[in-house]
């Protein structure tokens, strides 16, 4: 059984977080992951505080295990969401797409365990100083918003510059990924793409089909020109945005308009032409839909086997 200090700090059985994915990570998936011994996360996405409050309360109806909320700091409702987190006494918060310091000043003294997603060592040091319970080092193999560094390069550098435990994210979908992350110094993993194909994941069946059909070369990053690059599966929309980005006669506003609402179109409507199907580079390793409990148990059984066998072939 793999047990790390992440398990003790967060109060979970397996050191695995389910990624906070907008329009994907709602209460049913979060509860399933938490009931399976991991940390389920509800995405606050760009919705208002009352949406989050409803999701938290619905989640509590179907799990008594710890679960968390992921706050997208670029959301226009971030301040409102931060307040709901305090009022609802959420036990764990992960943050992304910005610096969480202003909110950590209230969350940390309230006993909320804050685990920011960081794309660089400077931000890791900053959030540690601000009271982070752990840090998620996310490489650009991940789906959704991405930084520049890969998981392989980022994780050991973050591990070396902070003293709190590090959770590796980006490009992890099986036991090999977990074992590799642990060898880089991580004490936990966060997986998003693998949980897109959890039975309990409520996304449109077309989204799951696209992930299951993905090949190694099927993800692409769009939005670099806008300053917030996003990794998704190739489709007509990603091609269109890619072309617009290289066309200097197209304004940034036109590109923004083209992408607006596209994640909802993918996750809710299953719009294979105009939706943005966010997924990580590891999507091709996801071959079947399974309950979250089986996904987690299998990943950790494989990791444990690999880590114990390592000693037999390393002389």
């Amino acid at each position, binding site marked *: 059984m793999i047990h790390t200090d992440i398990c003790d700090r967060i109060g979970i059985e397996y050191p695995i977080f389910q990624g906070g994915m907008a329009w994907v990570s709602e209460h049913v998936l979060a509860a399933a992951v938490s009931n399976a011994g991991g940390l389920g996360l509800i995405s606050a996405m760009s919705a208002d505080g009352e949406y989050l409050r409803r999701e938290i309360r619905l989640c509590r109806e179907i799990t008594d295990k710890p679960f968390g909320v992921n706050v997208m700091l670029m959301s226009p409702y971030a301040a409102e969401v931060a307040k709901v987190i305090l009022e609802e006494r959420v036990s764990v918060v992960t943050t992304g797409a*910005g610096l969480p310091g*202003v909110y950590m000043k209230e969350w940390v003294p309230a006993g909320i365990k804050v685990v920011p997603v960081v794309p660089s060592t*400077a931000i890791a040091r900053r959030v540690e100083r601000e009271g982070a319970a752990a840090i998620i080092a996310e490489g650009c193999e991940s789906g959704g918003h991405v930084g520049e560094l890969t998981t392989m390069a980022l994780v050991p550098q973050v591990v070396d510059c902070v003293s709190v435990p590090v959770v590796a994210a980006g490009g992890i979908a099986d036991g090999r990924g977990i074992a590799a992350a642990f060898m880089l110094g991580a004490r936990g993993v966060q997986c998003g793409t693998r949980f897109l194909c959890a039975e309990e994941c409520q996304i449109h069946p077309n989204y799951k089909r696209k992930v299951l059909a993905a090949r190694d070369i099927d993800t692409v990053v769009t939005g670099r020109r806008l*300053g917030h690059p996003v990794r998704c599966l190739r489709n007509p929309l990603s091609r269109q945005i890619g072309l617009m980005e290289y066309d200097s006669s197209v304004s940034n506003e036109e590109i923004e308009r083209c992408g607006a609402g596209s994640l909802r179109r993918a996750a809710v409507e299953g719009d294979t032409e105009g939706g943005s199907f966010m997924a990580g580079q590891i999507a091709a390793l996801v071959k079947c839909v399974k309950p979250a409990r089986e996904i987690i148990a299998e990943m950790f059984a494989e990791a444990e086997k690999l880590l114990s066998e390592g000693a037999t072939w390393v002389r």
Partner: protein
Amino acid sequence: MIFEKVAEMLADYKGIDVSTIAPESTFQDLELDSLDVADLVMQIEDALGVNIELDPSVTNMDALVKRIEEAKNA
């Protein structure tokens, strides 16, 4: 004084001529993205021994220098 010190560090960080950095220069003018700003601010903190509050309202050199002054006087 603080502006000159920060401009020097920034010029070194970006490999640009220090004379091209003015108090009113925005991070965008200087081609600094959010990761660059976080990295630069950590360097400034280490060099000056201060903790600087950083939020999205800090978008130019002048605002950054003000934050550093506040931190030094805190």
